[in-house]
């Protein structure tokens, strides 16, 4: 039991910090963290950042060195996410590519697929999105209805995806489609690598409650893919998607570190805001609430580390990721809600009129997605109950 970093880990951390200080956008570290709001400007900004990361060797750090990665250890990945959260770095546009699609292709892709896609993922030349959810297949993903039918040597894909992040900025999509309608629901699914820039693919932005357009609907009308675009085998897509999801631990790390940062900012907020001329943080009630949040954020961090320790020891990710995801999304929502409450009667002002920093309002509204996307809290609880506690499965028809 040891809560400190090794020397080589500390070295890695210093190297990354130095790089960030030199390469983050102008003024970023001083708090000028404005990302253009319009789709085009935002896309360019994020592509620039992705390219910088890749040039500096800081994209896909866990990838093998031969493919342009660093072969980073799990702990180094964690340090990476920690540092990125610390400086509130811009989001990684090609996160689906570097964190999920790339590693999956390296795992189980064909030589041709590796050749064709992998390097372009890392250098940001091709941005990826993932096409999983559908309007009638959210929590019940296996019910997806998007169909791929073989016609000659082409697969013709029809259907609709939803909640596809950054689809409008993406070049390719890791897409699940139904290729077989008999048998069990999850046995007729195939994973395709689909080109976005083709007549059969249309994206439409979804306006979220925080007035952002990061998610999309993707309409597939006779979209086309080849046999060579199939990952794994036909009708084996469910397993492929599980492989891909097993690479999601990085997302959990990001969420966990974001919470640590958020807590620090919450304290700053309470130190900054005043009531009757006194900083709020002197209010004993505020102190009690902050102390509760302090214990909970720290607990989640250590729990994440403990679960990571298990992964390192056993060599594979465990179901504990669901606990981390569940707890951090709920706590994030709670803390942001509290930040809203602290801002008094001006708490709903946002955008350029925000009382302190508009990101509180934007992030608060964004947090309602945390407990839904990537498996709702209700689904995560079922997973934890069944896979960790061994409780009986829900009754299904």
């Amino acid at each position, binding site marked *: 039991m040891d809560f400190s970093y090794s020397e080589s880990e500390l070295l890695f951390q210093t190297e990354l910090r130095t790089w960030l200080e030199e390469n983050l956008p102008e003024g970023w570290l001083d708090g000028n963290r404005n990302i253009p709001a319009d789709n085009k400007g935002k896309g360019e900004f994020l592509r620039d950042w992705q390219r910088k990361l890749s040039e500096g060797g800081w994209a896909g750090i866990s990838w093998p060195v031969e493919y342009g990665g660093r072969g980073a250890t799990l702990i180094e990945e964690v340090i990476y996410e920690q540092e990125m959260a610390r400086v509130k770095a811009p989001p990684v546009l090609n996160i689906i590519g570097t964190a999920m699609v790339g590693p999956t292709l390296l795992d189980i892709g064909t030589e041709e697929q590796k050749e064709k896609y992998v390097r372009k993922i890392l250098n940001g030349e091709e941005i990826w999105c993932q096409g999983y959810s559908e309007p009638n297949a959210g929590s019940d993903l296996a019910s997806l209805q998007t169909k791929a039918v073989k016609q000659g040597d082409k697969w013709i894909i029809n259907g609709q995806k939803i909640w596809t992040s950054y689809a409008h900025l993406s070049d390719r999509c890791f897409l699940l489609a139904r290729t077989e309608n008999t048998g069990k629901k999850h046995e007729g699914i195939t994973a395709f690598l689909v080109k976005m820039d083709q007549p059969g693919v249309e994206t439409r932005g979804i306006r979220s409650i925080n007035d952002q357009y990061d998610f999309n609907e993707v309409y597939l009308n006779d979209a086309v893919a080849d046999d060579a675009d199939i990952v794994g085998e036909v009708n084996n897509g469910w397993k492929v998607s599980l492989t891909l999801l097993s690479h999601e631990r990085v997302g959990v790390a990001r969420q966990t570190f974001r919470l640590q940062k958020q807590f620090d900012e919450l304290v700053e907020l309470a130190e900054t805001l005043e009531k009757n001329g006194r900083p709020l943080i002197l209010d004993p009630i505020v102190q009690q609430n902050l102390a509760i949040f302090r214990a909970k954020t720290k607990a989640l961090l250590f729990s994440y580390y403990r679960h990571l320790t298990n992964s390192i020891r056993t060599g594979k990710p465990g179901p504990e990721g669901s606990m981390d995801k569940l707890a951090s999304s709920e706590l994030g929502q709670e803390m942001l809600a509290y930040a809203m409450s602290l801002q008094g009667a001006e708490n*709903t002002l946002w955008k350029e009129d925000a009382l302190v920093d508009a990101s509180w309002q934007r992030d608060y509204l964004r947090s309602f997605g945390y407990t839904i996307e990537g498996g709702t809290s209700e689904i995560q609880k079922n997973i934890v109950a069944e896979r960790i506690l061994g409780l009986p499965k829900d009754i299904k028809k």
Partner: protein
Amino acid sequence: MDFAFNEEQTMFQQTTRQYLQSKGDLAIPRNYMEGKQEILTQLWGGLAELGFMGINVPEQYGGIGLGHLSILPILEEMGRAVIPGPYPETVAFAIPLLNEFGTEEQKKRYLPDVASGKTKFTLAIIDDRKNQLKADLQGDNYVLNGAKILVAHAEFADLMIVAVRTGASNQDVSLLIVDHQLHAECQPVKSIDETRTLFTVSFSDFLVPKENLLGQESAGDQILKAGLNELTAAWSATMVGGMDRVVDMSAQYVKTREQFGQPVGRFQAVKHKVVDMLLALENARSLSYYASWTVENKAGDTFEAVSMAKSYNSEAFIRTANANIQNHGGMGFTWEFDCHLFLKRARSLENYLGSPQEHRENIAKESGWNKEKVLQYNK
């Protein structure tokens, strides 16, 4: 003893619901958010036609002469449809204050126009931190300089009741009836609740005739206390309507949305969450009814009753609006679905007219848990 709506209240409730539905229900706030502000003028005309602008205006001034309990069902229904506009400010603040503290001349000048729907009121009570609003009496006019923030619907209201400093001491607060549309500067500020527009209103050598003083000079604090108490009860009632609606929305959605071959409302995690929402609604409704009853009956515990309603209801409204989003899954996260309207309204009311913590401090004070009482107790 009778704790439910009486026939008259039920009638007001049904009429309001039918009227708002005929005007598009949730399309009303939607249209307003999208800039079609003329919907407000139409709405106000309709409310006046129904007699709803004069419910608590005395008959001699063109109203019906009823009390706060008669407005209650209308407020609930407005909350149910997240209706924009300064209805509560007009009927639960301006009218009762004019009734109780207005001069005969003021009553004659304003009340008939309010009852007919011609005049809408709002209020301005929060000073700009860096530019406190002061009024100097010069001859027959008060000269106003300074600014008020978070003034709701300044664009739509014709008049506002403004709290101003009229003397050296913090207690020298007076209320003025101000025609801000003349040449006060109304600067809109962006709020996540786009159904309640907020403004910073700045006054620069702005003249207000002396006869527009409401109540005695420097008696503003006491008058405000009464007026804000009634207004707070009113907004608490709108929260009940909002909660009633999100419970309905959730119950309906989870009956029809299917996953795993089942309506999601069959899963206890979802099912019981809706029950928890309903229980919160029940509490909120009870506290609101009681608060309004104490307002109408000037009961001795009215300040406590209103603080209980406001502190409980505002937090419960946020909680249920939040749960409603979760119950709608991804769709609840979209701008397109209506769930967020309620959450945002709930947040914009959370700390308006006092935070939950402040209202609980008031409960403590009104219950005699404050220092003085206890030290007596210990003697």
